[in-house]
């Protein structure tokens, strides 16, 4: 029963993908139908997810006594006299249902929003086909009961991300950004693969349940001695760093904003980029044993700070949000890194709502402004776009940690856990707090410059300024509600909240006994509000200066020249090596050299031999006669 439910949940977006993908030609011009099919497919998944959630809430998980969750034996064989099996199977517990609700819930709203946003686009059906395929791949990622299935979904979402970033493939910058995302992710995926190999070598299986049970019992091959699990978890973390855009592999995410804005909201804010956090939370048992969480937490907090600093000086509305996403993902890694898995996942949930909301409002602004992205050319938009402004404000307040909104609860839990985790974690707490201040500052800089002050909109754009159609603003309002209140519903009580109790049975999630959260909440609130106030004093009536004035500002405005550094020290050497070693030396030198050398040899031999063919009949006859004479001589005198 549960299995069938999950199968319907999983297959529905695939059906949507097949319909839009295969019959796009017939659906051309029927936008409502095409988009409707896409949204309906996700709605079915959403309903199934809610049913699954109710079941899990009632204590039924998958696998359970009646159903093992395995629907198909995919690969089986023998390796070194050990038989192994990889199954297509599902693992549904509290963590999975939380992810399912985020993916299908936010996903459904974004599908609906896209019906309006993509209106008139030439690739309308293609867009919905990709979007459904993405949801399908993401569902595989979170539903799989083994690392191999997770990897299949992991690659699937990577593919869809690539396809959707480069959706407007006529634009050079879009295709470049797509390739960049794909290649940078490849580095992470390589780490994930190596991590999987290590786990397989150690445990002889990739099933979550069997790996976690054996890991806790210490019952596995020490393929790398005592540090087997350390190496495995760190390699898995490399995969998470790539997918979730952490230092040093974050560079693809800001560029990924070349895709359509709803894609940025769904894939590059709410769901796909959080896959790394999910993977670490899923592997919580391993991280608990290996004690590698501290690496995760430090990478996370440094990323959070670094991305927040870069966001301070950006002027492109979507890039600010992109760096903000990188920064918030850093918070999630702090959460799962210090062992507060539930808090990290809680932040994942709240972030999915408020960041998805902010991307969609950014899309609404772009829609009104004829695709203008530069906040310096906006200003005073709150009168023209009241709903957009109000919903964006909710999202910004939530991310800034304004009291009682969703981000306040989740971010505070993470900081609180960081404080209590011991070791170097107080430094993490302080950096996290600084980041919280910066977050509030850059987000309200964006708001004040965009929605307040004098209008700097160009006249011909200004005459068309309009609020978005209902199909777009209704999802905004629906998303704004959980962004505001989900913290109050699920997060009150910090580590004793409903959310923590719901997820406490997930393998490896540990309850934390921490002191009162109240002082931390007060500090966080003060820091957040201070950031907002500082932004108010600086950008209330001021446009961000175009030219950076000093070296530090220049450094930040140019994103610390990280892209340039990567380009100089990694991309160019690889390109040069490919050009000179692989192409010039190996391809044209060795491979072509062998082929051309053989041809030249044949030519020389032929050139020599053809001189025998004189065209004089008598020369041929002479050689024949000589031959006959030789044969005769041989048989007459030597044969006997």
């Amino acid at each position, binding site marked *: 029963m549960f299995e069938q439910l999950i199968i319907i949940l999983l297959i529905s977006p695939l059906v949507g993908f097949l319909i839009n993908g295969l019959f796009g030609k017939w659906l051309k011009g029927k936008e409502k139908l095409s988009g409707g099919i896409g949204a309906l497919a996700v709605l079915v998944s959403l309903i199934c997810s809610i049913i699954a959630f109710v079941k899990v809430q009632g204590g039924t998980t998958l696998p359970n006594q009646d159903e093992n969750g395995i629907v198909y034996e995919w690969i089986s064989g023998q390796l070194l006299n050990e038989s192994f099996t990889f199954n297509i199977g599902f693992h549904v517990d509290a963590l999975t249902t939380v992810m399912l609700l985020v993916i299908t819930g936010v996903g459904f709203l974004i599908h609906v929003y896209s019906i309006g946003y993509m209106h008139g686009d030439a690739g309308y059906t293609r867009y919905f086909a990709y979007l459904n395929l993405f949801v399908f791949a993401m569902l595989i990622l979170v539903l799989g009961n083994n690392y191999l299935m997770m990897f299949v979904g992991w690659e699937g979402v990577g593919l869809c991300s690539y396809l959707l970033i480069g959706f407007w493939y006529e634009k050079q910058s879009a295709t470049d950004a797509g390739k960049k995302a794909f290649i940078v992710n490849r580095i992470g995926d390589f780490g994930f693969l190596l991590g999987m190999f290590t786990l397989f070598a150690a445990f002889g299986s990739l099933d979550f349940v069997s790996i976690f049970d054996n890991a806790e019992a210490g019952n596995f091959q020490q393929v790398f001695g005592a540090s087997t699990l350390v190496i495995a978890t760190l390699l898995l973390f490399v995969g998470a760093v790539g997918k979730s855009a952490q230092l040093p592999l974050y560079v693809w995410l800001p560029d990924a904003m070349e895709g359509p804005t709803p894609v940025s909201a769904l894939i590059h804010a709410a769901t796909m980029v959080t896959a790394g956090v999910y993977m670490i939370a899923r592997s919580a048992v391993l991280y608990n044993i290996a004690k590698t969480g501290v690496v995760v937490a430090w990478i996370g907090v440094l990323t959070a700070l670094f991305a927040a600093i870069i966001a301070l000086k950006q002027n492109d509305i979507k890039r600010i949000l992109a760096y903000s996403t990188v920064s918030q993902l850093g918070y999630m890694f702090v959460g799962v890194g210090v062992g507060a898995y539930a808090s990290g996942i809680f932040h994942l949930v709240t972030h999915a709502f408020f960041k998805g909301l902010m991307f969609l409002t950014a899309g609404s602004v772009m829609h009104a402004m004829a695709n203008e992205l530069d906040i310096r050319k906006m200003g005073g938009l709150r009168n023209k776009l009241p709903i957009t402004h109000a919903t964006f404000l909710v999202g910004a307040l939530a991310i800034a940690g304004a009291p009682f909104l969703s981000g306040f609860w989740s971010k505070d839990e993470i900081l609180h856990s960081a404080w209590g985790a011991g070791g170097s974690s107080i430094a993490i707490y302080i950096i996290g707090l600084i980041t919280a201040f910066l977050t509030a500052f850059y987000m309200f800089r964006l708001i004040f410059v965009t929605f307040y002050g004098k209008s700097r909109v160009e006249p011909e754009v200004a005459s068309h300024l309009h609020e978005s159609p209902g199909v777009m603003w209704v999802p905004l309002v629906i998303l704004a509600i959980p962004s505001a209140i989900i913290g109050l519903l699920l997060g009150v009580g910090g580590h004793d909240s409903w959310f923590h109790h719901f997820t406490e049975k997930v393998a490896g999630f540990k309850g934390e006994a921490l002191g009162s959260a109240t002082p931390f909440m007060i500090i966080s609130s003060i820091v957040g509000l201070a950031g907002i106030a500082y932004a108010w004093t600086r950008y209330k009536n001021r446009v961000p200066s175009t030219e950076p004035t000093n070296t530090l500002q220049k450094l930040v405005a140019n994103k610390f020249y990280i892209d340039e550094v990567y380009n100089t020290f990694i991309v160019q050497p690889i390109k040069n090596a490919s050009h000179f070693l692989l192409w010039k030396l190996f391809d044209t030198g060795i491979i072509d050299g062998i082929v051309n050398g053989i041809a030249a040899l044949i030519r020389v031999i032929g050139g020599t031999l*053809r*001189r*025998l*063919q*004189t*065209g*004089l*009949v*008598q020369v041929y*006859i*002479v050689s024949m*006669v000589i031959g006959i004479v030789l044969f005769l001589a041989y048989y007459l005198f030597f044969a006997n």
Partner: protein
Amino acid sequence: MQLGLEYYLVLSALLFTIGVIGVLIRRNAIIIFMCIELMLNAANLAFVAISRNLGDPDGQLFVFFVMAVAAAEVAIGLAIIVSVFKHRETINVDEVNSLKG
């Protein structure tokens, strides 16, 4: 007095050798052609002589075949020489060397 087999074979070898030398050293296509005929007839002579010596008519049978083939060959060969002459105004085989590699 009856001539022994060896006389015939020596004559045959002489005729054959004359034919080979003629083919090798003459430049006129018709002469070369006649030398080929000479070699064929040398062979015929050897056939007939050995056939009679052995009392077996098979060799004489072969001679008829050779003569028939030679007749056909003469017809085609002469036709080729005529058409070469029409194209080139020469039947000197040294000048007919367009198959040079």
